[in-house]
């Protein structure tokens, strides 16, 4: 089953520190920019919604055509945002939780400056593997 999915991590200072296209569908040339545009536009909505609830996983918060944006906010106000077309809420929640663990491992690296871009190829490989598994 081919799915479209775009995943970005935005730090507390509104700077994207990681982005990846993790869907298994064939990608059109303009799809990547469109996906990023949608995700950045959803940031305002996340901002408002994040203060109303103390849960970490905010389900579908925005729609565009048939694509849905889901967000997971950590205690340090780092946002994991996923743009997808599937409706698998539990799978997405597990995906976010596993990525949160990976993110904490990156944070534990004393040479990593919090808020800077994540450039580790190991992290990239693992995120894509998790996406294939849960999405």
């Amino acid at each position: 089953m081919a799915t479209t999915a775009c995943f970005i991590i935005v730090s507390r200072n509104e700077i994207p520190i990681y982005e990846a296209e993790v869907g298994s569908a064939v990608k059109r040339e303009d799809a990547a920019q469109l996906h990023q545009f949608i995700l950045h536009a959803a940031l305002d909505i996340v901002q408002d919604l994040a203060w109303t609830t103390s849960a970490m996983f905010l389900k579908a918060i925005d729609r565009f055509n048939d694509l849905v944006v889901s967000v997971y906010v950590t205690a340090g106000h780092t946002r994991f945002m996923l743009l997808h077309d599937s409706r698998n809420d539990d799978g997405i929640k597990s995906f976010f939780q596993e990525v949160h663990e990976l993110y904490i491992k990156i944070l534990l690296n004393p040479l990593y400056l919090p808020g800077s871009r994540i450039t580790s190829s190991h992290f990239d490989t693992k995120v894509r593997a998790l996406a294939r598994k849960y999405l």
Partner: protein
Amino acid sequence: MGREVSESCVDSLLTEIVSTYNNRFYANKPELAARRIEAIGYQVGHQLSERYTMERPRFSDHLEAIKFICKDFWSELFKKQIDNLKTNHRGTFVLQDNRFRWLSRISTDPSVENTESQDPSAAAESKASLATMHVYFPCGIIRGALSNLGIPCAVSADISNLPACSFVVRIKA
């Protein structure tokens, strides 16, 4: 992800950090050594808070975050909770630990004097300054943890009666 750490190793590491920074790296510049130690604590607190808040829901206000520090965070680090929390409801919190683990081994006997001290007040002062060096690291940890939770603050410690230790947290703005 949580594994166990030998407590004696942590104690030795902390004692060595304070001693190295004071005597080798920044000899005769205790303020610089203090700031470096506090910066190390800041990074550690930042990472630890991210780790310990993973399972639980996020915090709705400052008091919730401070209570998290007093209960869950402190018990993960020191296997006990903060004994007393006071606030003036205007951005200042006092966290009091009646038996702070990392200072519990420092001697509190005022009659013991080392050979270089000239008079009792100087001995007491040098003993106090030695103990103050040891609290910069936990102050940094608290500051780093709160900053990661979105609360910029300044943390200082009051060690007038060892082994009890009070941490004063002043929230900025």
